[in-house]
């Protein structure tokens, strides 16, 4: 055996840290888009990572691990919404620290980004939990309808119906905003 136990433990800790760093933002945003508030998204992101890392042998293949983590994150968020039975869209305003804009962004771009973010959050708030989850998984995560159906535990036809309703409702909202 060429590696000692401390070496192996060190590598494992390093791999774990890298795995968290590579996926934290993506998973947080994914969960946030489903549950709709920062505090719950934070708790659920932590829960998803802990669940995933407790089976650390699964994180050897980075690409598969990212997909697997994404699945755990979705299931954790959906389970949470099922348990709670409702969605709370408050919480974001409680965090008052200003967002640091990426360097090189003009004031116009910052305003535009802020506006887009607002449109998205308010638009998603118009949807039911299932419509929003289906839309996020399909249009943001890019999952095929079959996979979305599996995650939501419903038929593919139901998923299509949720996605169509979500896009139509979102469109109505954008039209109202522009009017």
């Amino acid at each position: 055996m060429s590696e000692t136990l401390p070496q192996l433990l060190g590598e494992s800790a390093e791999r774990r840290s890298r795995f968290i760093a590579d996926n934290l933002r993506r998973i947080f945003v994914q969960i946030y888009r489903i549950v709709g508030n920062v505090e719950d998204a934070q708790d659920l992101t932590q829960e998803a990572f802990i669940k995933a890392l407790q089976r650390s042998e699964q994180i050897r293949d980075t690409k598969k691990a990212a997909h697997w983590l994404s699945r755990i994150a979705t299931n954790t968020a959906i389970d949470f919404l099922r348990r709670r039975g409702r969605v709370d869209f408050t919480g974001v305003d409680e965090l008052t620290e200003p967002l640091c804009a990426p360097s090189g962004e003009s004031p116009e771009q910052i305003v535009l980004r802020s506006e887009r973010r607002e449109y998205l959050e308010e638009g998603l708030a118009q949807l039911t939990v299932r419509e929003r989850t289906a839309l996020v998984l399909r249009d943001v995560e890019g999952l095929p309808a079959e996979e979305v159906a599996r995650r939501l535990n419903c038929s593919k036809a139901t998923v299509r119906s949720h996605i169509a309703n979500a896009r139509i409702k979102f469109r109505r909202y954008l039209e109202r905003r522009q009017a």
Partner: protein
Amino acid sequence: MKHVHETDLALYAGGDLPLWRRLLISLHLKRCTDCRREAEYFRAERDFVTDAAIELPRELAWNDLAGEMRANIQLGLEAGECVTPVRRPEPKLGWRAAVALTSATLVIVSGWLWLLPHPSTAKVEGVVLSATADGIELLDAGNTLTLKHTSAEPAILSVSVEGGMSEHYVDDETGMVTINNVYVQ
């Protein structure tokens, strides 16, 4: 001209319709400006959601939040390791080991049975002397001769390696010690 239903256009924009319906709608869109505009609108909306959804929430101090989450994840993992019972690997018995163990068990059991004392089934041949409650009994080819003693008290018997048997007892009537010696030849 009959227009495409809004639901179908919403699904068409995301490529969520079966092939044949997608083809039918594509043909229709080539001829219908209104439906084409609607489809474009849905497509733009979908692109908007896809792009905007990766943005972090408004007024969120991401670096602070990320640091807090990393620390909490680490803490959660360490707490989990503390409460998880240590799993010892269960010894696996391969088929070779199982065969060897069974064979060894069979050998041991067979040896033990072999060494157990068996009741003698051999036929006794020749003259046999035996002590009974009445006295000394001599058996020879199915015939029995018993040398009885007359004492109420138990007699003292002794056997010699030459094949003889001796009996001592006190005669109840005379009070004399009587000794009977029987030899087999």
